[in-house]
């Protein structure tokens, strides 16, 4: 049983990449996270996370087109890999297990579930 080490921010980044499917590159990921979660993301933190995820093998990247607005620099598109999918699924299932193990203290909680 493999252990999938995934930090909180990394998890969010991976989920965002999965959401964006074919359009996940630096700027778009950053905008997506910022709009959905209303939290500021620095380019540096994002790039580090992306790099680490790629080193772990959860993401893979390919080169995109260069545009003038990018001063001629190409884009780098990311995709979730199969191990990556397994990783986020695993993380989610862990969360679910934990949630279900909470004793029912109030009926509202149970209702939400």
């Amino acid at each position, binding site marked *: 049983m493999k252990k999938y080490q995934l930090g909180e921010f990394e998890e969010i980044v991976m989920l965002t990449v999965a959401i964006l499917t074919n359009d996940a*590159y*630096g*700027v778009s990921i*950053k905008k997506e996270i910022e709009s959905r979660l209303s939290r500021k993301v*620095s*380019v*540096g*933190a994002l*790039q*580090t996370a992306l*790099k*680490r995820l790629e080193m772990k093998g959860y993401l893979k990247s390919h080169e995109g087109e*260069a*545009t003038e*607005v*990018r*001063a001629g*620099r*190409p*884009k*780098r598109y990311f995709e979730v890999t199969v191990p990556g999918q397994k990783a986020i699924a695993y993380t989610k299932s862990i969360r679910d297990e934990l949630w279900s193990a909470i004793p029912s203290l109030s009926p509202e909680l149970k209702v939400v579930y």
Partner: protein
Amino acid sequence: MRKRKAGPPGLFLRFFRWFCHPELKDYIEGDMMELYYERIKNKGKRRADIKFIIDVVLLFRPGIIRLSKNMKYLNTYAMFRNYFKVTFRNLVRHKGYAALNIAGFAAGIAVCIVILLFVSFERSFDNFQPDDLYRLNEVQAFPGMLASQEVALSMSPMGPALKDEFPEIKNFTRVSWFRNYMVYSGSKKAYLGQSFLVDSTFLQMFNFKMIEGNRATALMKPNQAVLTRSAARKIFGDEDPLNKMITYYSRDTMTFMVTGVLKDVPENSQMQFDALYSFSSLKDPTLAENWGGNWLNTYLELQPHADIAALEKKFPAFLKEHMASSEGWKYYTLFLLPYKNVHAGASDIGLDYINYHKFDGKYTDLFFGLALIILVIACINFMNLSTARSAERAKEVGIRKSIGSRRIQLAFQFITESVIMSLIALVIALALVYLMLPSVNSLSQRNLSLDFLLKPWPAILTAGGAVVIGILSGIYPAFYLSGFQPVKVLKSANPDGGSRPVLRNVLVVIQFSSAICLMINSVFIVRQLNFMLSKDPGFDKSNVVDIELNGKSGSNTEELKTELLKNNLIKGVTACQDILGSHLDQSTVEFRGDGPKRFLTATRLIVDPDYLRLYKIPVIYGRDFSESNSARGNEYIINETFAKELLSDEPGRPMSSLIGDRFGFDSTGTIIGIARDFNFNSLHNKIETLFINNNVQYRFSHLSVKIDGSKTAESLACIRSVWDSKYPDQPFRYQFLDDHFNEVYQSDSQVSSIVARLTLLAFIISCLGLFGLASYSAERRVKEVGIRKVFGASVAGIAVMLSKDFIKYVMVASVITLPLAWFIVRQWIRNYAYHIPISLWIFLVSVLASIVIALVTTSYQAVKSASANPVSSLRNE
């Protein structure tokens, strides 16, 4: 319209480009630019700039920063092995150049090591003694002397009086010396070199290690002695010498009890002795209390941080108080010299009898500077020769670069080569030093050795030093060679290294200037030395043997004389108080001419009547000493200088009028004659005032025997047999007067040897440098030579053309160096009262010689290039 800066803040953009990992750089930069232009649209340029800056700063984090280049070199070990291999292959393939380069380096390093050994030994003198020790010295300015003199002597009662009256002075000790005498213990006898008579405080003030005995009490009572371990062994063998008695025969027989044993005195101590005797053993109390007799040295221990200048200012009053009766205080000034400076700083101080191998500290510093200069020149040569061979390495550099070597790697490779060569040079240098040391030691009378290398730290430091030198010398060639562009070098194998070798030319000029300057100086030194040795000193010193007299033999010279003269190998015998050529004693005499009595101080020589005849010193006025007994003791002969001094107030009066005037230690004698001036001291000094007294009752210390020059060995044997028959238990110590005079000039001859050798070295190094230059230039002009040959130039013509440039350098060097050399020569030659003139032809000849040497050096290269086959050099066009 104002021009606005387009794009994001350039500084930060550049900063980002610098630190960002190359793999990520493009993408991130693209993202940043996209965001930037969006932000401009949304919030304006200013906000966009600010956010850009923030983002760049936040991007400065470990995940993004590129790995430093070093991290890439994970296989450094493998690269080093390659470097070693390549280095050795290169050395083997170009054995000639490699040998030349390494040899030059080794020579420079060897000389540097030798000089540093000498300097460090000199500087280590007396370093084991405590601080705050000083020696008391005097400046004597007596009437009758031509100049005042600084002397190391002091008066016996000064020490105790100083200690009592000045709280700054904690302690004192007096030291008097005597040499070369026999010591007996029962039936055993031994010969001790030098011993001191010292106060009991000596052992407490100085750090001489005591093996046996009590430092505080060993020399407190009269007739106590402390021996060094080797002296003790000489006398007593392996027995414990403590509490045994030793006897010393001189004017009086004295017996001492041994109260202690000291470790042998180390080489680096200004005081060298075999035994110490207690000062209180002196039988004659007047000697100890006498104000006016300067016959010993006084050493003082001062309070820490004492004010020397203030103390010295109090001395004149001190002297006046103690010497009020005799007026002597007018003629003396006392001054202090720190004990640790005595070895190096007392060159101007005379009558300095216990200053072992005194050597002027200024020369030591000079030598140190020279060592550094030589090292620098050797390194520069190394650089020159390495870059001169550039054509051969050019292809290698080109190939390595095109395969992917970075410039730093190549530089590193060449530096490794230099370091390896310098380590090899170090080994060779050490071998050279080992071979040179015996002659250096005998030249400098020191005992230098390479033993220091046996300890781990010095050995490591030396090796480290060689590595550092290798790196420093290798940097320039490394960067020069690694800068070749592959395209250029692979195409034509002619690197044409960019900048013209101006630096190199300057270096060669400097090298030649120093070599020529040294050559000129050494020629002058050698000639001055020869001049001093061969100049007629005014008396005949050939074939004279000087014999040391002592005690019994000194008081009865008439008998010895008659015995010796019986043999016809002996041409003459005379007795005197001291040997010519050493510093003779001085004393005060009275002179009563027509005016009032005058007291003067002059050099004194006490002799028997035959003295002037044996040495063939002419008496120009009056007469020589008479043989008759009645006249003994009253006859005085003065030299011309003294006569002039006596008549200094009456220049018109002729010298002959002095004959008959009363003169002498108590005005009891008369001047019977005036002798021609002769050099009784070394030619360093002008001739001082001298008076000669005929007094056979005097206990003479030296016997001068003139022998048959053609039968030296037999004459010596004859003298020896007479001596042994009369004084069998006194050692027969003799010296040829010629040898003695050579000794007097020994330090001069040492300096001249050293300078001559340094000249040779400087020329070798300069020629190496020139050789490198010539090779480099020859390489560059290969094509030019080829073309000229095709057009019909002769080998000789081309060789001349190639060499012409270098002769230019030598000429420039000469022009620079001539005034400098002239200035230097003038400086030191003035120190000799009698010196050779500074002749121009010496300068010219030196320059000419240098030109010839330079020609010979460059001719090899010139001829080689000139004879090259033009076909092969033009083939690649």
